[in-house]
């Protein structure tokens, strides 16, 4: 038995080494660095809370960047999830070619993170790009996508919503696993489609809604490629998301201490929201076979 125990740990060796060297030590180190002034030239100098005081009281760029990041996350995640669920709901029906559609809808997710697609986005939302050509062709007015601070962030939101495929596949698998007899029983009792959706479908898929919500949120907070390639953070820093600010501070200005402090603020925000989601999940996530609910 002890031999077997040792064996199990033996198989975990690579993971344990990686966990320590690439995750836990860097995690601690970044907290330490956030209390220092460190520009790579000389050793880190302890400055206490100075970085954080600077961030919250003097740094206008940070305030702007934080606001923009929150707006971005709170629009992108709900839009993307709603859209993914909508399409999954439509696909969950005895349709021919369901696999063809599912594949087609998944293609953007395969490519969406690539630089090529960010480049494409730059072109199609350019002032004379595809989107405006189509809008004017349909009789609408052309939109100043990248020049107007009101619109620029939305192009990135659209890019990420376009990549709804992985969330959709997960929703679809959950929808397909719902017992059909529940709907039949409800219909006999006179429930409408909308009632079935709200009172049967939604409660039964809350575990995957929860899963998608957390994963998409953590991802959205770390959006980098979109602003970096498509809008370069502009105009007027309206797309200057926090990960881009961290990158600029760390790898352009080499202010590692200050960048670590921003990274920690971002981390704490993500952690608080994730914990809040976990805490609230006891109230709204339904697990089949769970006697508590």
């Amino acid at each position, binding site marked *: 038995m002890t031999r077997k125990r040792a064996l199990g740990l033996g198989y975990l060796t690579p993971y344990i080494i990686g966990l320590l060297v690439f995750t836990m030590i860097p995690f601690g180190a970044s907290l330490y660095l956030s209390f220092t002034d460190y520009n790579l030239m000389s050793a880190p100098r302890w400055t206490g809370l100075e970085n954080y005081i600077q961030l919250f009281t003097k740094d206008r760029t940070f305030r702007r960047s934080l606001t923009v990041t929150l707006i971005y996350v709170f629009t992108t995640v709900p839009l993307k999830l709603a859209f993914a669920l909508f399409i999954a709901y439509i696909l969950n029906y005895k349709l021919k070619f369901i696999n063809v559609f599912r594949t087609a809808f998944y293609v953007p997710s395969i490519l969406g993170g690539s630089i090529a697609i960010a480049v494409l986005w730059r072109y199609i939302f350019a002032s004379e790009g595809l989107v405006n*050509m189509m809008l004017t062709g349909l009789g609408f007015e052309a939109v100043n996508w990248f020049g107007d601070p009101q619109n620029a962030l939305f192009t990135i939101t659209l890019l990420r919503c376009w990549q709804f495929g992985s969330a959709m596949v997960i929703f679809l698998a959950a929808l397909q696993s719902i017992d059909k007899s529940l709907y039949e029983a409800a219909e006999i009792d006179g429930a409408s489609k909308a009632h079935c959706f709200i009172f049967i479908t939604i409660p039964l898929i809350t575990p995957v809604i929860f899963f998608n919500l957390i994963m998409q949120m953590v991802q959205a907070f770390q959006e980098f490629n979109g602003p970096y390639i498509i809008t370069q953070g502009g105009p007027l820093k309206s797309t200057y998301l926090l990960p881009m600010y961290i990158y600029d501070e760390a790898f352009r200005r080499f202010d590692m201490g200050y960048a670590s402090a921003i990274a920690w603020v971002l981390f704490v925000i993500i952690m608080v929201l994730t914990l809040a989601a976990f805490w609230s999940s006891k109230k709204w996530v339904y697990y089949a076979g769970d006697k508590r609910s």
Partner: protein
Amino acid sequence: MTDISHASDVITAGADGLAEARAANARQIRNAKISAAVRYVILFGVGLLMLYPLIWLVGASFKTNAEIFANPGFIPQQPTTEGYVKGWETSTPYTFGRFFLNSFLIIIPKVIGTAISCTMVAYGFARFDFPLKKLLFGSVIAILLLPNVVTRIPQYLLFRDLGWLDSFLPLWVPSAFAGDAFFVFMLVQFLRAIPGDMEEAARVDGANSWQTLVFIVVPMLAPALISVCLFQFMWTMNDFLGPLIYISSVDKYPVSLALKLSIDTTEAFEWNRILAMSVLTITPALIVFFMAQKYFIEGLSAGGVKG
């Protein structure tokens, strides 16, 4: 009399009921048909909207520069391969071939390292009991949710001290230590769903745990392992921030960085070169996806739902 009239009432009522039932049935079939039609229309519309930018991209890469911002259609009026020829040459001393080679020099060790390390770790978690198991598996979930942004700077400093900057090592070595928690998690879920009977039989026949892993578990795990390799391939091909931080010499650029470089260095009005190279950089991912899409979808569903 009353009896007869009553009986006829009953009969007409019955006939009415039957007619009503028939009508209801017809209505149901008609509703089902309408519902299916509406679904098809929405799916088709959304599908077209989703894929049109990609179709346009491919078409535009064969257009002349004058046509790209003048024609919303995707079929080029004067098709040209100039974008591909000039784009491939790049404005650097290297061709795009070099950048593709670099991408594969990162991807191959990363995929192999991921497959081997994650299989071992998942096997350890799914089939053995050991102290701190709960805590360690908890750490897998924690890493899954841990934003990379918080460890990135110290990792950079670590690789700098190791002298690994401007090499491919920082891009794949962490993955060879089962650093991508998503894959560990996915494989553990998959393994837990496979009964251990075969392994027990192998053990009774005298196989040690390593032989059991290689000859029994790995073959059963194959579909999930293929998913892991495909996702890792795709993500690495698309990775931009990693190379941006660690790779500084142009001769080591992977395609994602090379594409960014070509935007920065190509003169304005040379759009078709950039679009042509964009098409090339997404081609490997698309080919792999269409050849093995079943594994992607299954991998995603398994990782997400069974959790």
